[in-house]
């Protein structure tokens, strides 16, 4: 019978020592996520980076804050700046040279507008101005129905614009560009690009609730909660995979109340009134600019037509909460989403777009 065997008591001691060390290590682990908040595009921008030393993180935050401020100015739809100048030129002469800072937005916006059947249309600045949404102060009351009809009759459309090199020619003087439903997406894409240039591969850039996440949070994926469109709390949680954007458009964001009714700022270009077909739409898509435009277009499309628009825009992951609180999802989205709401809402799976 072999005599040199490990004493069980020694083994126990070793085990306890290991356990103790592990416990200590867990307790003392500093949070490797660093975060900064700043205001841009009239909203709170939140940048989180993981596993980056403090100096690089600070540099990233400062850079991003500066860039966001620059983009906010470059693409501002009503404060004096390049976009306002462009709109003025288009209105007076029907054509204009596009400022370099705005040029990269035109072609993608035209493409997305066309593919969304015009439900996403940055040319309706005039309509937005009529409603008073082109101002920092919220409007007090909706415009008169007659005024809306008159504005609609002018039919400004993104398709009225023709881009030739860097000159924009319009066949409709009523076109007034407002990239509100798109600019944040572009900014987020560029911000992520800059973070990558700095060597940061695990981060979230969250511009007022719409975000793009890259990499992971250490050992686990970034977890993104989608806010409940009615009431407090979170509707669902999504785990970001790799590099993707998660954008939500809702009827509860910017807007105003008048005589007991709520009017939000995502206007339906067809009716001239705030989109009424859904409470919120969440889209997952690689680039943020497309996700931004898509979420807007789908909110306008509403519960009736969203699948068709999703098809045209080649979206895989879409979740829409309709006017009754029923959650519609593509099958692919259903696999990615974990409903947090208790009691859970009614869910309807669509066919794959």
């Amino acid at each position: 019978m072999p005599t040199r065997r490990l004493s069980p008591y020694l083994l126990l001691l070793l085990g306890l020592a290991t356990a103790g060390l592990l416990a200590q290590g867990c307790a003392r682990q500093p949070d490797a996520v660093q975060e900064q908040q700043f205001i841009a595009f009239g909203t709170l921008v939140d940048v989180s980076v993981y596993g980056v030393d403090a100096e690089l993180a600070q540099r990233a935050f400062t850079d991003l804050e500066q860039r966001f401020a620059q983009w906010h100015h470059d693409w501002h739809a009503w404060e004096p700046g390049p976009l306002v100048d462009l709109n003025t030129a288009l209105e007076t002469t029907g054509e204009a040279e596009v400022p370099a800072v705005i040029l990269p937005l035109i072609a993608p916006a035209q493409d997305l507008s066309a593919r969304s059947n015009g439900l996403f249309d940055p040319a309706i600045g005039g309509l937005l101005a009529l409603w008073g949404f082109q101002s920092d102060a919220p409007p007090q009351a909706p415009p008169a129905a007659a005024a809306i009809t008159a504005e609609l009759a002018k039919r400004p459309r993104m398709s009225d614009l023709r881009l030739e090199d860097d000159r924009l020619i319009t066949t409709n003087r009523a076109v007034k560009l407002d990239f509100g439903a798109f600019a944040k997406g572009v900014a987020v894409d560029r911000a992520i690009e800059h973070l990558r240039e700095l060597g940061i591969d695990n981060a979230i850039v969250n511009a007022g609730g719409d975000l793009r996440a890259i990499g992971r949070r250490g050992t686990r994926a970034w977890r993104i909660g989608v806010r409940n469109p009615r009431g407090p709390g979170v509707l669902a949680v999504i785990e970001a995979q790799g590099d993707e954007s998660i954008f939500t458009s809702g009827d509860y964001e910017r807007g105003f109340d008048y005589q007991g009714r709520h009017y939000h700022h995502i206007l339906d270009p067809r009716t001239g009134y705030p989109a009424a077909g859904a409470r919120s739409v969440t889209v997952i898509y690689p680039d943020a600019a497309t996700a931004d435009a898509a979420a807007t277009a789908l909110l306008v499309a509403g519960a009736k037509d969203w699948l068709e628009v999703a098809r045209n825009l080649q979206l895989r992951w879409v979740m829409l909460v309709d006017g009754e609180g029923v959650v519609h999802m593509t099958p692919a989205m259903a696999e990615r989403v974990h409903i947090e709401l208790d009691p859970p809402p009614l869910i309807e799976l669509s066919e794959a777009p």
Partner: protein
Amino acid sequence: MQVTTTREDYRIAWLTALAVAIHLVEATLPSPLPGIKPGLANVITIVVLLRFGWGSAAWVSLLRILVSSLLLGTFLSPTFVLSLGGATASIAVLWVASRRWTPAFGPLGLSVLAALAHMSGQFGLAFALFIPHPGLLHLLPVLLTAALLFGITSGIIARMMLQGIPENTP
């Protein structure tokens, strides 16, 4: 060609058959949660380990899983995969536990080790392959408690069986 069999082969074959029989009976029992089976067939594994060595125990274990799954029609099913995973973890741990340089465990200790390893292996596989939901972790302590209890029971039965099979049986 002649295949010679020894008395040991007969013994092992008989014990494997017994293990399969126990496994089949257990398979008919309703279980409160998937994955909670008394695992009494493990008794045989421990007895073989202590009388015929680890190699034989490993054979008996694997044969038991294979034959049972073929008889039950669950071969290559998720149940089979989980069973196999559990058994593999179990015999791996038993290998470590029966070395010269590890403490001397008795049938009870080995049984508990085998049962805990088996349950952990099954859980790990289920988590990795079938239900990667963090909520599943809530079941783990419950499953391991069951494994501990069944391990102790198996250990007691194994001990009793071993008293009936004296060492150095030809």
